[in-house]
């Protein structure tokens, strides 16, 4: 409610479509709001919650995996996570929002993205576990009294699985940010007066086609930057580099 009030109070119809100036570095939008500030608000209000959701999904998956571990993973659980992981998250979120009607749209987006991220992380960990648990040094660790959980954390999560998990995390972040912006553009995610990179692009797209592309290009540049950021971070981390020969 406070967020909406703030967004409404920034509206100044007299200052609509002002060109870039010292006061407004990227100019103003169709309701006279500072465009740079609005892009910043979109990143804070829309992109950061998406990042937090994906991170939360991965943490929940790791926690459930470790809690479950000494037992065998049941086939329905493996099938369900693999099926959810294989579904196109964007189309799934779009379908859920269309069928759910007009309420709590952003919450639904976050819910779908969170479930998709959790399923992806869980499926990845199950696959890694099934692949590695019969390795010689894993079995030796177990024979010397190491528990399955400790084995998974020490030999898997913090060593052999970390690079691929990081890659999967970055991929989930990228796709989730793209899905959020896409749904915002389609009018199914975050709605005006709240800001999303998608709804900023949508609001100025017609004007861009008529020869004033600055607001659209600024929002597009922000979307490009925010969606490639996980990839840049991943490449600078040590887990990215290929393993040395044995």
């Amino acid at each position, binding site marked *: 409610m406070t967020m909406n009030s703030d967004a409404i109070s920034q509206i100044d119809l007299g200052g609509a479509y002002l060109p870039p100036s010292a006061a407004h570095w990227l100019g103003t939008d169709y309701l006279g709001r500072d465009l740079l500030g609005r892009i910043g608000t979109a990143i804070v209000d829309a992109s950061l919650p998406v990042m937090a959701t994906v991170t939360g999904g991965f943490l929940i998956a790791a926690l459930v995996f470790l809690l479950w571990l000494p037992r065998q993973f049941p086939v329905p659980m493996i099938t369900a996570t693999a099926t959810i992981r*294989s579904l*196109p998250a964007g189309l799934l979120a779009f379908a859920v929002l*269309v*069928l759910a009607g007009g309420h709590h749209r952003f919450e639904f987006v976050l819910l779908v993205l969170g479930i998709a991220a959790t399923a992806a992380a869980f499926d990845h960990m199950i696959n890694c576990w099934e692949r590695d648990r019969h390795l010689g040094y894993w079995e030796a660790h177990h024979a010397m009294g190491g528990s399955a959980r400790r084995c998974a954390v020490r030999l898997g999560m913090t060593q052999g699985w970390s690079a691929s998990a990081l*890659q999967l995390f970055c*991929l989930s972040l990228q796709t989730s940010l793209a899905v959020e912006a896409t749904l915002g553009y*389609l009018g199914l995610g975050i709605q005006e007066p709240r800001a999303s990179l998608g709804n900023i692009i949508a609001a100025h797209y017609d004007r861009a086609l008529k020869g004033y592309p600055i607001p659209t290009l600024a929002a597009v540049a922000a979307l*490009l930057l925010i969606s490639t950021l996980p990839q840049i971070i991943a490449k600078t981390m040590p887990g990215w580099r*290929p393993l040395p020969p044995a």
Partner: protein
Amino acid sequence: MIELTEIFNAESFNFDGGLTTALILAWLAIFTLSATVAGMFFCNQASSIKSTALTKRDGSAPRSNVPIIVPSLALAPIAIFAAWATARVNLIFPVFEFTDTAEIVVAAIAPAFLLFIGSGLLWRVVALSRSEWAYWYSKPFVRVEQAFGKNVQRRLAPMIGTRVLLQSASDCLPLVFSELVIIESIFNAPGLGFWSWEYAKTRDIGSAAKSIAVLFIAYGLINLAIYFANKNLGKKLTGYV
């Protein structure tokens, strides 16, 4: 929430949308195939250089990396502005009453190409081609055949091409279908994604659900086709190696 009867009774479902979507997907398949064929010619040259692919501890071909995904929402507007500003080419879909079929076929190229880049398919095909060549070149049977002066590239190319094609299609298909709605919407291409969005805007939830269901069915069928092709290819490869 919507009831099932609402979906089955929906009358305004647009079947022509399926044709437009099929056209875009067909172009996408052509681009993927072309990139794979190009990869066979260019990547096998690069494979003579020692690749980091071969330094993997378990000896398997490298599969994963974070693919370069540029959201179609960012890519498509830039492409439309650039085409208009530089060459006065209008990439928006022609939706007139008597639009020529050839014009529609040509108009589907731009959305398909951006989908090809936006879904990471291009990057995936290139990355897989490089790693597959490097992996198979390191196999002893290839060294033996090379020692006998046989044309290894000619024998490997169809096998590697098929593997790359199936693997990249399997990896990127979810992203393709995720990006399909936005690509059709930005390019005004009246496909299933576009119509489901239009129906959703007019609160015709039954028709929207029907369009989305058809998209999911198409996704499932393509996935099944890839699965069975992979299964058969796996048997052939085992025999070959």
